[in-house]
């Protein structure tokens, strides 16, 4: 009887200890959670920025005629890229256009969650590309993103399509071979894989959350940054700004890919 009583007392204490531990665990979890929330709020208070993109809805519409037509209009922060994106299926535009333009990958189908936009770069292909907008045409000014000083301050892209101006934020900049996927339809798992590969190959680490629910945009052009043998594509990946997401200057840091770039080509 006495043992039973002692046993009950022990059980009671054990229960008390368990309850106490549960309570403490909850408290610790809550504190931790509060801290996370606090950090998140801190991020929310990051520097807000104002973008100078222009409304191009009417330009997109006005650009269409019987010979060629635009399916969108691209503006990239910090560059002179502010021109139409043409439908690559148009057979004439390629030879009759005397202004800067880009085109959409012919693999794209309406409704897909990723678009690839391509543009020429012929003269700004050196390993020391011009950090300028002057005199550059088509996608040649994209090479400015190979400089960290430029990339950390220019984070947004505006892609005007279907009657609305949509903002995209950059989450990856990298050099790729021609074998680089040109964006056929991606399934959910493929999308996640793709996002991971972008972040892995990017020469900068962007503090941007990207997942398979995002609308993705890839813009790319050519380069001879590494000569005529490898990685002849310069690619910038971005995702559409989510609803209620604030336009802030988020963090961009150089990573080992960029350090390799510097080491290999003595750049800084």
């Amino acid at each position, binding site marked *: 009887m006495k043992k039973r009583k002692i046993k009950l007392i022990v059980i009671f204490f054990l229960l008390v200890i368990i309850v106490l531990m549960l309570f403490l665990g909850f408290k610790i979890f809550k504190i931790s959670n509060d801290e996370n929330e606090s950090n998140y709020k801190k991020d929310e208070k990051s520097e807000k920025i104002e973008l100078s993109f222009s409304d191009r809805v009417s330009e997109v519409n006005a650009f269409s005629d019987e010979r060629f037509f635009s399916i969108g209009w691209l503006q990239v922060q910090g560059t002179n890229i502010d021109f139409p994106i043409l439908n690559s299926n148009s057979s004439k535009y*390629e030879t009759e256009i005397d202004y800067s333009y880009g085109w959409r990958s012919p693999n794209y189908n309406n409704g897909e969650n990723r678009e690839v936009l391509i543009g020429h770069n012929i003269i700004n292909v050196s390993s020391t590309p*011009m950090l300028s907008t002057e005199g550059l045409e088509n996608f040649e000014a994209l090479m400015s993103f190979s400089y960290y000083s430029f990339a950390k301050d220019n984070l947004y892209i505006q892609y005007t399509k279907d009657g609305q101006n949509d903002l995209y934020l950059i989450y990856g900049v990298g050099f790729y071979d021609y074998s680089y996927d040109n964006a056929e339809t991606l399934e959910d798992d493929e999308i996640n894989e793709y996002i991971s590969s972008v972040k892995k190959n990017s020469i900068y680490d962007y503090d941007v959350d990207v997942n398979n629910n995002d609308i993705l945009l890839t813009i790319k052009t050519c380069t001879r940054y590494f000569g005529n043998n490898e990685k002849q594509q310069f690619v910038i990946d971005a995702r559409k700004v989510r609803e209620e997401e604030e336009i802030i200057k988020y963090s961009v840091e150089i990573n080992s890919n960029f350090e390799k770039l510097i080491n290999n080509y003595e750049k800084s």
Partner: protein
Amino acid sequence: MKKYITRILLFCFFLFPFSIYAENDETEAPTDIVKNYCIKDNCSNDTCGTYEIKYKSDSSLSLTDIANSIRNGTLSNEITAIRTAFKCTNEGENFTSCPSESDEEDVQSIVSSYTLDTEQSNINVVFKESNGKFDIDIVDVYSGKFIFYNAGTYPLKSVDSKDMTDKIKEDPETYNPAEYIDTSKIITNFNDDKILELVDITKNGKTVKGYKLTDVSGDDTQEMKLKIEVYQKSGDCAGIMVGAFSIKLPALDTVDVANPAISNPTEYGCGDVNSFKPKGIKISDTALNDLKNDLIGECDSKNRTIKYTQKVNLKSTILEKFENLKALFGNNDDNDDSNNNKINSKCNEEKTKTRFVKYIKKKYWAATVSEEYTIKGDQAKLVKAGDGFEYETNYSITRYVTIVQISKPVRPPQCVTTYGHICYWPGGSGSDGGPNEDFDSCVLKCDGGKYTQNCINSCYLNVYGVNRDLSFIDKFSYSNQEKDSSVSRTASCVTDHGNAGTVAGNPGDYYCVSSYCSANGWCNEWAITGPSGCSWSPGAEYDRQVDTADTQLDTLLRELNVDMTSSDYIGDYSYKITDTYLKYGDEMYDFVVDSSNPPILGVEAKYASGDNGVIESAAAIKTSYSTKTYHPYIKRKVNITVNLPLSAVNKVTGQSVYRSKDDDNFVFSVNANENKLDRIDNISLLDYYAKTDRKYYTSVWSKNYNVKYDDQLGVIKLTDDAEFNINVSNTSAGEEEGQTFSSNIQCYYGVYNKFYNDCDPDDPTCCDPSVDICGGIQYIYRPIDLDDVFPNDRSPRWNWTGKITNGKSTGAALTSEESFYNNNQTVNPEQLISDIQEKGYEIYDVSSDSREVDYEFVLTTENIRNIRKYNKSVSDYNKDGSNNYLDYNMSCYDSNGDAIGGEVCTSRFLDNIDGNSGTEENNSFITYSVNGYGITERKSIAGCNNAIGGTECDY
């Protein structure tokens, strides 16, 4: 650890931010500048159009660049001049011989042979003035990017040595004439012949290369030139100045400087100008501002700059022009705002007022119109009761038309068309946005595949046939428009005829220079015509503008040539005369006559002198483009005289009425009830009235008014404090479109009537009621001295005077035409007076001659009483509202039966004196049986007429 390494790297990056370019700087040689000097008239395809004009990328833009960038559209004669300046031969491109600097004449020939005018070149000179000192920036109009002609335009080739020629032919892309040509010098002919250095100049917020002069005195009026010397570096003429030319700078006195009156309007008087608003003048703000801006352009905010010479006397100029502006509005600072253009004056006081009328502005000419209005009345009048007076008022309107040339015909710049091509080639589809294989091969060949920018540029040109020299573009920062055309500039050419050529090699030609383009693509040509406002025929356009300006001036003058004598321009006048005795019945009436009354005022308008009253025009101005003479202003004057209307005087009462302006057989008398003149019906003018001049006749009943007796002079004078009883007003005189003038002249007349006992008792002629019957005397009779009918030069009344002649107050005869009563038996008052005085009292001596005596009778007291009694029984025979004491019961005989002229009227008042007829109502007035006082009939024609020499009654 990794983080630290990164940070270290970043630290290094920020410490040495330019190290990334170090290698690049070493590998990138400055881009060459092609310096070509001699000019060929003609060239073939193998020598023309194959040479690339390049630019140094190290910012050491040389003066020879200027020589190559003289201007678009250089004409052939200018090319010849330039060639001469550079000692070229006509046949080819070689120097004929090396100029010798020791040869003074040779050097002078080089230096002075060609001068660029900055107005016609691409050189842009910016003056910055401060306290009479100038800083002068010299850049080219393309923001420091000198625009060079390519070989397709003017092949400014430099082939003074075989080596150079061979090099060009061998490899035109890498041809670098800097190896052959020394840096040139730019030297001022002022500022101690300073040699200028190429410096950074800020232009439109951008830093460009140019030359700068500082502290150039504004007093320096000499022609300023920049002398540009070009020295040969190698070859036969090495080290020798092989050419030179000058850039003529604008004279300092024509230089635009900031207009201080805009930045400091108060200090320069523009504050007053801007706030000025003429009182009482109807002028819109827009018109007023236009007027201010055109007349005092120095205060126009649009004129941010003025000429330097204007600045020196700017304030006084503005003040002077402001006075002129105010003068247009009559300097009416003290005027009554409510009625600015009204003038009041008294009697013969003269007053003038000037006012602004309108401002007309056309493209080349503007005109201000102002008017000056002057009024002057007559002096005050002194008349005897029953006498009339004239009162004449004089007005003049002077119209000033001032024409200002506000702009001049401008010779437009010659249009030139720049042609070029854009080369297109296939490509750009699919996923490859990069260079093609040819490009990569070219780069591989050029730098082993390092892709240096130099090789990229070179290969781009080779492969794509288009020059996209990024180093140049970066250096000079093209605008978007320039960027668009930069691709095609390499194939541009310039013409002055507006047509693209079809054959390469000459000015005006265009062609595709890229063999790649020809082989792999196609060209689309483009053309840009400019500069703005240009003309293909500047001379014809200039002449057309001159003709337009001519026509416009003539039109303006015609528009302003108004008829100043028209009734609309003269205005409306009225006379108002206050007469105490002017009555209709018992109602007082102020005589008013104006344009609404049927009697017309005597208004006469005549131009002052000359044609259309132009009394003065300013000296002719000669426009800079024509010898035609214009009048910059015209002063034209019209004189207006306004008189009382024509009157008519009652033959019996002496009271005046006014004649109709439409039919002078009708007269008008006052209608006090309706305050107007009424036509008197049923009474013929000829029966009862005599036509007279433009006078106002006072009533014989008038009492003394506005008069006094001067003891010392013994005369009657107007009082000093007379009440105004004459008022002549005028409205709507002058320009009918604008605000017109009005005026009011007040004056007075005085009436003296000694038969009223209220006259001055000191006046010895005043009626003495203790002796005379004073007051109420309407019909005056008196015994006269038959030897002197009107003693002491007394003025006879109206019925004794026809006209005043030679200043005498004696009467003159009425001509038969002027006689309205006895047309065929006119009375000559002067002769009658003479006859009476000649016969004197002997006329009563019937014992010697009874022929002049009609009747002889004695008036007894009873006779007189009877006559008075009769007179009281009659009244208002002529229906004028007052008793007349006369029935005018005469018998009239119309000799010619038309009731006009020839009518003889007689009274039968005395007919029954001898009792022969008992039918007359007055038969008892005179008794004939009183002790022999009956009448003795003598001539017995009394009342028939007074015709001289008449012996019997002719009716």
